[in-house]
């Protein structure tokens, strides 16, 4: 049985590596200085999809991302690893969305896609760490969900999934169609494949095609698999009241940069044995240790 697999991917700023270059003088983050990457756990999700495709020949992997038009970059990253095609859901009206408005928008795109057996995404994105979009998409589509997945197997229309939970492991069985979110402890994604890079390097969305050279345009006209999809809110029949800022019940009141209260520290050099011994004696005397 071949499967229609949807992989949810997000292009995120690399918040794990906020170095000195990314900090402005006032201590705030210069977001544009952070590299935009394929959200790490979405790569774990893609790997699970690729494995399912291997065990179910004829399966099709469609990557779905919501973001700026340049999020087409993550679609190409996915194609280089074995996905078949991709959709960028992009519209100014989608901006400022919280997790609820985001999941509504993505659920509308999945409905528009019409054919899906399993929807796989990363557990959470590193720019928000909420882990909410997966379960919320499941609820919007009226599907069951399995979160924290590490391995997904599908047989006879049923998925068997190993989950990594606190202090242990759980194996569950769930019917398709289904939404699964994959944990970072799952198998890492395979690297890009040189042949697929050659095949897909000119893959483009309609707006990218518009800006491309005549040569690339011709290529896109003759090779249909290079044409990626770009959908607007209207195209997926999203209700304007449920998307973007208006569709977001959570409102951010304030955002402040984290600044820690500096203490006056006592400084000791590694070579100063007497000072290190005094420190240990102090800690013993005040019952911190010993």
């Amino acid at each position: 049985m071949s499967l229609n697999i949807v992989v949810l991917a997000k292009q995120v700023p690399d918040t794990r590596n906020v170095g000195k270059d990314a900090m402005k003088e006032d201590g705030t983050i210069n977001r544009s200085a952070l590299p935009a990457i394929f959200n790490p756990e979405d790569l774990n999700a893609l790997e699970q999809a690729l494995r399912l495709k291997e065990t179910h020949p004829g399966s099709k992997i469609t990557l779905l991302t919501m973001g700026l038009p340049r999020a087409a970059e993550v679609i190409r990253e996915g194609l280089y690893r074995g996905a078949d095609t991709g959709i960028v859901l992009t519209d100014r009206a989608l901006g400022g969305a919280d997790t609820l408005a985001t999941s509504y928008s993505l659920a509308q795109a999945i409905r528009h896609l019409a054919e899906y057996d399993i929807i796989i995404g990363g557990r959470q994105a590193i720019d928000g760490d909420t882990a909410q979009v997966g379960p919320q998409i499941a609820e919007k589509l009226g599907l069951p969900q399995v979160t924290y997945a590490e391995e997904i197997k599908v047989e006879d229309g049923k998925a068997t999934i190993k989950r990594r939970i606190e202090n242990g492991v759980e194996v569950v069985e769930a019917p398709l169609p289904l939404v699964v979110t994959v944990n970072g402890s799952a198998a890492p994604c395979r690297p890009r494949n040189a042949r697929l890079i050659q095949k897909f390097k000119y893959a483009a969305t309609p707006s990218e095609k518009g800006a491309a050279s005549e040569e690339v345009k011709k290529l896109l006209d003759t090779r249909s698999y290079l044409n990626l999809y770009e959908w607007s809110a209207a195209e997926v029949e999203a209700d304007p009241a449920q998307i973007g800022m208006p569709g977001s019940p959570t409102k951010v009141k304030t955002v402040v940069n984290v600044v820690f209260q500096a203490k006056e520290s006592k400084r000791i050099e590694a070579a100063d044995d007497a000072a290190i011994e005094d420190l240990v004696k102090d800690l013993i005397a005040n019952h911190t240790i010993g």
Partner: protein
Amino acid sequence: MADNNNLIVYCEYEDGKVADVSLELLTKGRTLATRLGVKLEAIVAGDKLDGIETQIFPYGVDVVYKVEDARLYPYTSLPHSSILINLFKEIKPQVCLMGATCIGRDLGPRVSSCLHSGLTADCTSLEIGDHKDPRTGKEYTDLLYQIGPAFGGNMVASIGNPDCRPQMATVREGVMKKEIYDANYKGEVINLDCDKYVDSASYVVKIIDRHIEKSAVNIKNSPIIVAGGYGVGSKENFDLLFELANTLGGEVGASRAAVDAGFVEHDRQIGQTGVTVRPKLYIACGISGQIQHIAGMQESSIIISINNDPNAPINTIADYVITGNLEDVLPKLIKYYKKNSK
């Protein structure tokens, strides 16, 4: 049941014991409910719930809703979310809190999606306050402010859901304090009929195997933590940290960078994506001090930073800064401890 506008906590339990994170939320919930002038309620759904309320009432809980059915344990998403969704439609709580656990983070989003109520994940602080919408000028009183890390922990955001109820938030274990309110506090138990709240089609996900392995590592409750960062350099170099921790009777922790590099296992990770700790003594070895790590340990009583970079960010919050190499400093700490302790 009437629309009650109260504050409700979803309680998790395992092996007949209510989870610590739920008791911590009940403690916080009691304070918030008193401030709002409403009742504190709790809901437990599962199997063999006999007498579970006696563990809950001492936290100042006025009402415990119990839903008992063998199919509700172990937890699966659909039946538990169905219970909360249908109950909340009846009683309309103004606030719902749950643990930022594998269960709470699976359940919360599903419930919030169906009720179209905002949910904030992993809050580090919850406060009641007023709000004026800058665009409409509309004023709101007694909103729940959900304060938590944003943007990978590099910022702190204060979030509110002015127009939607319940206002929902998840909080990680160990973030709030657990404290008995009144050992003799007595509330009311309301037993709910599971079949009225859960459609039989909701039991589609079957658990076919489950083994809980109690974590061998218990950094959360250790009074002394020796933590290593990427600067430790290798898995082998962590041996020195284990030696110091063993000598002092403590545990070894790590930053996300050290865990990602494969130096130690994930259950030792301290910070926003790991555990929050407040030991008596925290010895940070080769940890630069990414904000997301500091957020998980800054309340330690005494912090010692050992780093060869005298300007490592973590040094600003340390009580003692030892500048130098770990392989020089750690053996000296071990030596002087052995020499001076009885």
